[in-house]
């Protein structure tokens, strides 16, 4: 039974079409697996009953020879994304009983494609975090080593995919929240171009940076899922009317003469020497496959993190102002007046990191500081975007670099040092600031047997080149075939 769960999404799809197994069997196998791996805490809510019902309906449709891109495929959805009729908590006490009154567009797209939703995955509260330790429902453990973080904020989705608790998952990525946990958990994670995927029904953290992303165990699966969720949505005014190509079309093509930019600024003192070595080996492999590596300069890289930690908290402070205890979400008990309604509902509902970021955001937007911080950061942002534009126009087709400066750190290691935590996003943040598509693909393991991820950053709307290059690398390596130890069987040091 468990072996079913180790099939790729595309194998599952074929198996269902050919009648090798049923959607009901498959869903049952995944539900059992989820139950056996509760120690990971990857799910906030497992939707066993509805998943079983959905699977039965899928079997009826499959028997009628109906076809849909994901018919019967069991997936998981980050709890930041609305799923009608079920709780969407954003891993926060503020929304712990909030039942989504409608589906996000991406949820609707998965449903139309016939997917089965196994449950809502754990995450850092309101997507703020890089370790999934900021959840009101407890931290997520890394399947490769239970004493390590899964990464964040889409830690639950990454851990679930890595441990084969689902055939794929949705996450969100604002500063690296799909790519970094993908790297830490040894799976593929992609953040599409800003505007490629609708944000309607996705709880807003930083509106100019948020994108829904995909986590999968291999490149083809990631390409399939990305295709299903991509597309213009009139319900999202930041959605762009850009043709969605078939992302699978270029998989298997050669990457000879593909120019890959290697930015000097992404190999920094303080990053793990082992990670640096593994990344350089991966780059060498790309060269062996025929790609041409060129050095590029992205001179404003060193101010990307401070820029992000001005803009994202500022946007968050505005977006989270809606949680006021009035219309939905937590309302404090026994309130006497309006002030108490606001202060107590919000202070009781939000966790420490969320409060920190709201305060930073409020500060940088306040009178006297707005020009010096917020406006200045927006200008720096345009310079960061321009760095990439120049590199792509003059030198390369895509950029390759590490996803994270280290492999998964220990639970508790950085939680008391917010700034140290923020620095783990140093390589992922620039792509969000510039709105570029970026993905992380497994490229090795360090001496602690923890996964390392290679990041590829592409031109706007050019996810196809990212998938092509990633697929070429994956086909020439075996990293994606390694599985984490079964729960209880792994090292815990």
């Amino acid at each position, binding site marked *: 039974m468990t072996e079913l769960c180790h099939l790729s999404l595309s194998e599952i799809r074929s198996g269902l079409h050919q009648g090798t197994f049923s959607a009901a069997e498959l869903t049952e196998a995944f539900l059992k697996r989820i139950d056996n791996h509760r120690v990971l805490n990857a799910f906030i809510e497992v939707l066993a009953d509805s998943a079983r019902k959905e699977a039965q309906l899928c079997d009826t449709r499959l028997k009628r020879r109906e076809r849909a891109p994901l018919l019967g495929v069991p997936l998981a959805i980050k709890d930041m994304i609305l799923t009608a009729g079920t709780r969407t908590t954003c891993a926060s006490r503020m929304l712990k009983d*909030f*039942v989504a*009154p409608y589906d996000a567009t991406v949820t609707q797209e998965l449903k139309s494609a016939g997917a089965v939703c196994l449950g809502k995955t754990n995450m850092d509260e309101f997507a703020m975090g890089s370790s999934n330790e900021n959840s009101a429902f407890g931290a997520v453990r890394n399947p490769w080593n239970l004493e390590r973080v899964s990464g964040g904020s889409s830690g639950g989705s990454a851990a679930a995919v890595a441990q084969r608790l689902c055939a794929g998952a949705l996450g969100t990525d604002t500063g690296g929240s799909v790519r970094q946990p993908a790297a830490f958990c040894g799976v593929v994670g992609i953040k599409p171009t*800003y*505007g490629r995927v609708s944000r309607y029904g996705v709880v807003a953290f930083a509106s*100019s940076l948020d994108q829904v992303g995909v986590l999968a165990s291999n490149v083809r699966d990631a390409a399939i899922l990305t295709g299903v969720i991509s597309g213009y949505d*009139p319900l999202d*005014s*930041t959605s*762009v009317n850009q043709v969605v190509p078939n992302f699978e079309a270029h998989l298997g093509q050669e990457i000879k003469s593909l120019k890959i930019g290697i930015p000097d600024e992404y190999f920094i003192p303080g990053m793990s020497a082992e990670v640096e070595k593994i990344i350089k080996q991966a780059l060498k492999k790309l060269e062996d496959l025929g790609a041409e590596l060129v050095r590029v300069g992205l001179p404003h890289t060193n*101010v990307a*993190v*401070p820029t992000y*930690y001005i803009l994202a908290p500022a946007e968050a402070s505005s977006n989270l*102002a809606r949680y*006021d*205890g*009035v*219309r*939905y*979400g*937590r*309302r404090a008990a026994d309130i*006497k*007046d*309006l*002030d*108490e309604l*606001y*202060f107590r509902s*919000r*202070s009781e509902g*939000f966790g420490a990191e969320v*409060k*920190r970021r*709201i*305060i*930073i955001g*409020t*500060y*940088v937007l*306040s009178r006297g500081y707005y020009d*010096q*911080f917020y*406006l*200045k*950061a*927006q*200008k*720096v*942002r*345009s*310079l960061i*975007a*321009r760095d990439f534009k120049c590199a792509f126009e003059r030198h390369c087709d895509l950029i390759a670099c590490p996803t994270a400066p280290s492999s998964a750190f220990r639970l508790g290691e950085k939680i008391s040092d*917010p*700034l140290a935590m*923020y620095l783990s996003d140093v390589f992922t943040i620039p792509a969000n600031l510039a*709105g570029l598509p970026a993905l992380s693909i497994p490229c090795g393991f360090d001496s602690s047997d923890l996964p390392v991820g290679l990041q590829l950053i592409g031109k*706007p709307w050019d996810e196809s080149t990212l998938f092509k290059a990633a697929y070429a690398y994956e086909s020439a390596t075996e990293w994606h075939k390694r599985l984490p130890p079964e729960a209880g069987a792994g090292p815990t040091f």
Partner: protein
Amino acid sequence: MISAEEVRKIASLARLNVDSDDLSRLSRELGTILDYIKQIEAVDTGEAQPMSHVHGIVNVFREDNVTPSLDSEELLKNAPDYCGRFIRVPLIVE
């Protein structure tokens, strides 16, 4: 560096309480973060324009037509306290 007083003031703008126990820790953390983000002051931004949307989309409109809205009953289900079609809130006008 940020004083406890200023932390309280900013937090209050965002309608957040800060426990006295948390105040010194929070001031320290915020001070470190604010010192860090100050780095951008040194960046020469020259003629650069502020970027709020990466693709420069502006003025996304739709036709002024009535289309079905979300169902009020469904939406009210998440209200902490409601009565009929109204959400009940504490008295704010004497």
